[in-house]
């Protein structure tokens, strides 16, 4: 649908304009937000808790301190998290394992919130290749690196993927910045997911995480990505993504199965 918006831009290019206006928004009771996940990588894992702030107030997290946070799994393990920094709660003993379901329990300001998430099996990455793409004729864009992450979708339907890109050990693009993929249309096929990034330079060490998660995480990230770009005439009416946190909470508690490959750009 992006291309359709190009049409309308071409069409109205001569006429349409934009201006900043004042919109009066009412304030709402702050909601508890969960941001964190258990993965198949060694712990500790961290869960960030915060509360929502008024829309036009300066952005920045409003950490939620002093909560009691417990994570358990269906193999009988329980871990009570400790607050390492305001709003940041970390595990002590837990080890994420594919196939297990994780339960999160939060007690904050006398209210209870719960969430659970199942970790799927890992899907291996076949290769990570890269190419230096020359700039397109007529384009002002300089030559840039294009990475291709190849993997094979398992024959069974119901796999969902996200990606993270690390540059020299630093997270550059997270799951929300990249597309999330459902195997509804691609089931069982070899996939070649491309990331083109103008910031990457020769000599950079680049790593890509291929993340497998369940349908509820896919739905959450998919809706969240639309919500973040919502507002245009070609987007659906915005709506809050379906959080897996109960009792009116926002955000998402995930269980991710990750495989990675790294490459040094030449």
């Amino acid at each position, binding site marked *: *649908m992006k*291309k*359709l918006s*190009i*049409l*309308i831009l*071409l*069409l*109205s290019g001569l*006429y*349409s*304009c*934009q*201006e*900043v*206006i004042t*919109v009066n*928004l009412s304030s*709402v009771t*702050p*909601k508890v937000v969960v*941001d964190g996940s258990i993965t198949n990588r060694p712990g500790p894992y961290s869960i960030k808790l*915060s509360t*929502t*702030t*008024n*829309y*036009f*107030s*300066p*952005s*920045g*997290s*409003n950490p939620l301190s002093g909560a009691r946070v417990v994570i358990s799994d269906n193999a009988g393990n329980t871990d009570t998290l400790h607050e390492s920094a305001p709003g940041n709660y970390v595990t002590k003993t837990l080890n994420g394992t594919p196939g297990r379901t994780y339960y999160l329990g939060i007690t904050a300001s006398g209210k209870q919130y719960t969430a659970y998430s199942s970790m799927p099996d890992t899907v291996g990455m076949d290769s990570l290749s890269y190419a230096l793409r020359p700039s397109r004729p*007529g384009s002002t864009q300089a030559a840039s690196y294009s990475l291709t992450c190849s993997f094979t979708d398992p024959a069974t339907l119901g796999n969902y993927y996200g990606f993270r890109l690390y540059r020299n050990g630093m997270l550059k693009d*997270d799951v*929300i910045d990249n597309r999330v993929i459902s195997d509804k*249309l*691609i*089931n069982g*096929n070899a996939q*070649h997911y491309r990331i083109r990034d103008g910031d990457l330079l020769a000599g950079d060490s680049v790593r890509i995480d291929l993340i497998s998660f369940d349908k509820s995480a896919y739905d959450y990230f*998919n*809706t*969240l990505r*639309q*919500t*973040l770009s*919502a*507002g245009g*005439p070609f987007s*659906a*009416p*915005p*709506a*809050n*993504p*379906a959080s897996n946190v109960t009792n009116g909470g926002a*955000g*998402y508690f995930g269980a991710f199965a990750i495989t990675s490959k790294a490459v040094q750009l030449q």
Partner: protein
Amino acid sequence: MHSIRSFIFLLLGFLPLLVSAQQKYTISGTVRDSANGESVIGSSIWIPEAKTGVNTNAYGFYSITLPAGKYTLVVSYVGRQPKSIAIDLQKNEKRNIELSESSVLLNSVEITAERADKNISSTGMSSDHLDMQQIKAIPVLFGEVDILKTITLLPGVMSAGEGNTGFYVRGGGADQNLVLLDEATVYNASHLLGFFSIFNADAIKDMTLIKGGIPAEYGGRLASVLDVHMNDGNSKTYSVKGGIGLIASRLTVEGPMIKDKGSFLITGRRTYADVFLKLFGSTAQARSSSLYFYDLNVKANYRFSEKDKLFLSGYFGRDVFGLSGQFGINWGNATGTLRWNHIFNDKLFLNTSAIVSDYRYNIDITSGSSNFGISSGVRDYSLKLAFEYYLNDKNKIKFGGQSTFHVFTPGSISTNGTRLINDLNIDQKYSLENAVYISDEQTLTPKLSVNYGLRYVLFDQLGPGKIFHYDTTGAITDTSVYKSGKIVQQYGSLEPRLAVRYTLTPSSSVKASYTRTSQFIQLLSNTTASTPTDLWVPSSNVIKPQLGDQYAAGYFRNFHNNMFEASVEVYYKNMQNQIDYKPGANIVLNPVVESQLYFGKGRSYGSEFLLRKNTGAFTGWVSYTLSRTERQFPYINNNSWYPAKQDRTHDISVVLMYNLGKTWTFGAVWIYATGNAVTFPVAQYEFENHVVAYYSDRNGYRMPAYHRLDLSATLHRPKKKRFEAEWDFSVYNVYNRHNAYSIEFQQDPNNPSQTQAVKTWLFGVIPSVTYNFKF
């Protein structure tokens, strides 16, 4: 069910009144335009001696039965010289009548109703009949005359938004209007994503919009009927007319095939925005892009005998948009109608129609070495029989039936080159919609007349196909496979229709109506703007048919010898099985699209005020609608009523036209509407280092109010030999109001920690000029 039973009793109760045996004769015939032989639809034949009258039908045919005696037929129609014909009725008479253009110049602005007091005397309420002459006098965007924009100036009709030909009638959605072009359903009436409608004014004869008290011969949509008729073609002489405008040019050729036996008409229109892009585009990409639409209307008719006439009409239009080598999309409608008019005798008229209607879009995407195409659409095949029986001067009976076979192609993907995605072919969906109807327009006493009828529709969802069953969360619980022609699901719907008029004084009346309508196909569209990829889907085992019940009442009053016409109408409508979308619903190419939907109900109520000046140099109208449209869905806003997208509290239109001598006509339009209901963010939080908005309840906020003034002036050049010409000058949005098209929230570039609201507006002040000619 109880109300339906009492209705049938009522119907049966009236039947004996139909049988009467006095010495009576019938006058019948066809009313045509003397200049070009076009049949005149809806012209009035009034017999003052009998204080009764009749209007010509969609083919210009009329019939009236009266006791033997001497009468005068007063025949009149907007913009035509009225004609009086004396008649001594001693046997059945056949009178074909020709009306000539009134002495006032071409395109004169004269909003006379077909009969000056028709609004008072007819049982029809909540309906508007507009002639192209009236429509052409109203200023429009880029000078492109557009009937879909004109109707939004009527009470109870609201524009779906700027740059959008969609319209909402009495709280109904844009897909709840039955749009007919020569009886063929038009599935997508917009060009260029809705900036223009597919109706080329040069090919259109007239149109009727019915928003309440819908007669039994129409069905299939909940809210309204827009019945558009194409011109038949000049049967007297060859003529050419056309126009050159800023956006598009038009050309029409028409003439007799065999003089007074048949005629043809061909009208074409094409835009030239793409030509400008090629010449002036700032980037190579813009220069190699294509962006245009065209449409073609053709019509031919042939009269085999006084009793048989054949019409063939067709429409074909396409929009094309492409970025070379990357992306291309084209979409459009095609319709074809073959009609046979047969007059059995002076009282019984039959029209038989075979209709094909098609809408589809195709998308081509090239990405590296791979290439894939998506195509989707809907096609209808219909057969329709419509009888009109002019029983006597008190009863006009209509009955008939229609059978439509719908084929829906939800979408298929075909790939070439490197295979990144699988070919996908979502099963085509088939359904059969059968309807029968009967209605009687009956004069009970000189003061009281009724139009009552029944329509019964039987809808079958048919195989072949894989049918999914879902649980309440939208997960598939079961799949069953049906063979070709096997009925998957069947729905029947009995639709009573009733309209009553009671005359209070010769210049005032009260009317009331009840209409039940049902709708078996709907447009899925979860974006704010209408896009060609919006998807038509049929009722099914999951999607239940939409049902609507509308109650309306009105008071109609004319002043100053029908110079002024005033009306007040109130309505209440409830709608069942309405559709909304789950958050992030995916409509395009989704084999399980039904799992993306929520089902709920709607209601709408309001009052509409109209004051119209019909005669004199100065004509026009003021309309005001005060209304509310709400919906209730179990999973939206905790099951409480919320404002629908089409909810507008206030909607005002002022239309003024002034005739200055024989050369100049001036027009002005001012409109005001409450802003759309929208969903805005109310809080924010951080998630994975992104700032995420937390949204309000669905449609919890309003866009700013919309208002705009347009002006136009038309200069008519004196007729030289056969050549006539006129210049149309118009200014859209005279006071350059920046009406909000959308409001988006984004980071303040000067202060990245702050969010700001940014309004996009489409059209500032736009002057335009159009040159029209005819010879």
